[in-house]
């Protein structure tokens, strides 16, 4: 079976600094894959290489078996690759509904039409409402995003991404900055993600990682140092030495 997402010997350097080296990743459809590693391991760079925000110096990125290494970010999105951001990237003056509608309109090709009223795209609005209901954001649909509590804003971040109906979803520290009282909202949303999506999650919170992931890749200094099931990773002495040992519950 072709992998939903695959990287082959991906590499990137800034001058003499190798921030990504020889990274081979493979996610099947429906995968729940976590990417962990100490600060500065190159996790965000790797995400940027996969999404196309950066272009690699070597290696390939494959989506559903197709080489997308040369495609710009927006084209990869069209091929089913979506991501959330570590720091919220929202349209904070617009309502939650409009944030999601922008994304959906883009996917269904309505956003290229400059003559049709936005309010006439009822299929876009209906889909947005349905998506918000699924994420339990419907009560906030008409509220400007900046007035939402932070945890809900993180949820909007995920909602925008799901508006793309991705086959591969990259979650970049989805719970970052969310107060612990609200973190269950994010956990519930992640648990409820459609099953067939391949999910790659970057997370520092080991609780979330071990609860969510069926497979873990450990990154250090730009390269993969271990891969395996959560049990294997938890028992890997090398990983413990460079990473888990550093600070217990990081």
């Amino acid at each position: 079976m072709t992998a939903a997402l695959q990287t082959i010997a991906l590499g990137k350097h800034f001058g003499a600094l190798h921030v990504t080296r020889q990274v081979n990743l493979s996610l099947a459809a429906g995968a729940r894959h976590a990417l962990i590693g100490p600060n500065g391991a190159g996790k965000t760079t790797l995400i940027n290489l996969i999404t196309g925000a950066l272009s690699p110096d070597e290696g390939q990125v494959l989506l559903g078996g197709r080489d997308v290494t040369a495609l710009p970010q927006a084209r990869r999105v069209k091929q089913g690759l979506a991501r959330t951001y570590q720091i919220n990237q929202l349209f904070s003056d617009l309502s939650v509904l409009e944030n999601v509608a922008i994304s959906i309109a883009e996917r269904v090709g309505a956003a290229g039409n400059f003559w049709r009223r936005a309010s006439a795209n009822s299929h876009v609005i209906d889909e947005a409402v349905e998506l918000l209901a699924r994420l339990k954001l419907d009560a906030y649909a008409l509220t400007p995003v900046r007035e939402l509590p932070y945890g809900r804003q993180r949820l909007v971040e995920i909602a925008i991404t799901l508006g793309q109906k991705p086959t591969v979803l990259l979650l970049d520290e989805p719970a970052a900055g969310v107060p612990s009282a609200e973190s269950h909202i994010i956990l519930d949303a992640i648990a409820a993600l459609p099953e067939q999506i391949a999910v790659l999650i970057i997370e520092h919170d080991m609780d979330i990682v071990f609860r969510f992931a069926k497979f873990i890749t450990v990154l250090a200094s730009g390269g993969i140092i271990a891969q395996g099931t959560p049990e294997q990773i938890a028992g890997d002495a090398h990983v413990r030495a460079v990473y888990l040992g550093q600070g217990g519950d990081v």
Partner: protein
Amino acid sequence: MTELLDNGGGSAAARRFMAGREAWHWAEALPWVVAVAAFFVFPDYLALGTQILIAIIFALSLDLILGYAGIITLGHAAYFGAGAYGTGMLSAHLGWGEPISAMLFGGFVGGVLGFVSGWVLLRYHGLTLLMLTLATAIMLKEGANAAEEWTGGFDGLVGISIWPLLGSFEYDLWGKTYYCFALVVLLLCFLAARRIVHSAFGRSLVGIKGNVGRMHGVGTPVHGRLVAVYTLSAAMAGLAGGLFAESNAYVTLDVLSFARSGTVLIMLVLGGTGRLYGAFVGAAVYMILEDELAKLSPEFWEFGIGLLLVIVVLFFRRGLLGSLDDLRARSMGGGA
């Protein structure tokens, strides 16, 4: 089943909300009432009125790219000027003076130039884009200066002769015909602009202005989208230029000047960007003040507009209309 019902209710509310965003407000009738009233009340000022209407169209075109898509340009006169020369040369060299089609031709020339230059320039940002737009407009002006045979160079393009509008309304000394013509063109341009900004396309421009990285992330072809709105804006600027050429029957290099690019920017910022009506208020206030004050003392006018600009940038960044909104919001907040 209650969930489904809720869902249906949510959808209806969401549609009402989205429709509310683009609903007409009674105050939107005001500028048109004023424009029609001015026709009867100030019959001696219709020539100035025509120039104001043309300036509003031009400022409106700038609002599309600056106010909605966040494209900063110091060279928007390039498209106004291209339209003016396009319309003017059609009459002066090919003898075609039918006003509506000649003006549309001006819009076409502006649009084509906007598409070509936008395709190249809109890959750049910030100071580089500022410099590129500035240099493009001035290069065009120098090109027009050099192509004397076609443009009349420094002396201006003469020999523009425009036929009666719709075959029956002659050009008149008081400018009645062109005032009405310009008002109708403005109305159509405004309706188009309003339609554009309230489309999903318009929303995506606001998204690009607000957070371009995220728009890449939802698969928006950002460059293409910007080129599209730039082309629409340039075409509208070209229409304004075409009208300008027809109403004056004369075109000089001034239509391409940096001063014109700067003035339209100032008008729009004075009125308020990203709200369509800012173009109306800004252009009207600017041109009426100029007409009144420059008569008294050109230096006084120039100093005044400079000072006003500084004050607006420092204290009233949202322009006249935006500040009015803020004031209203504050007084309502205080009352509650």
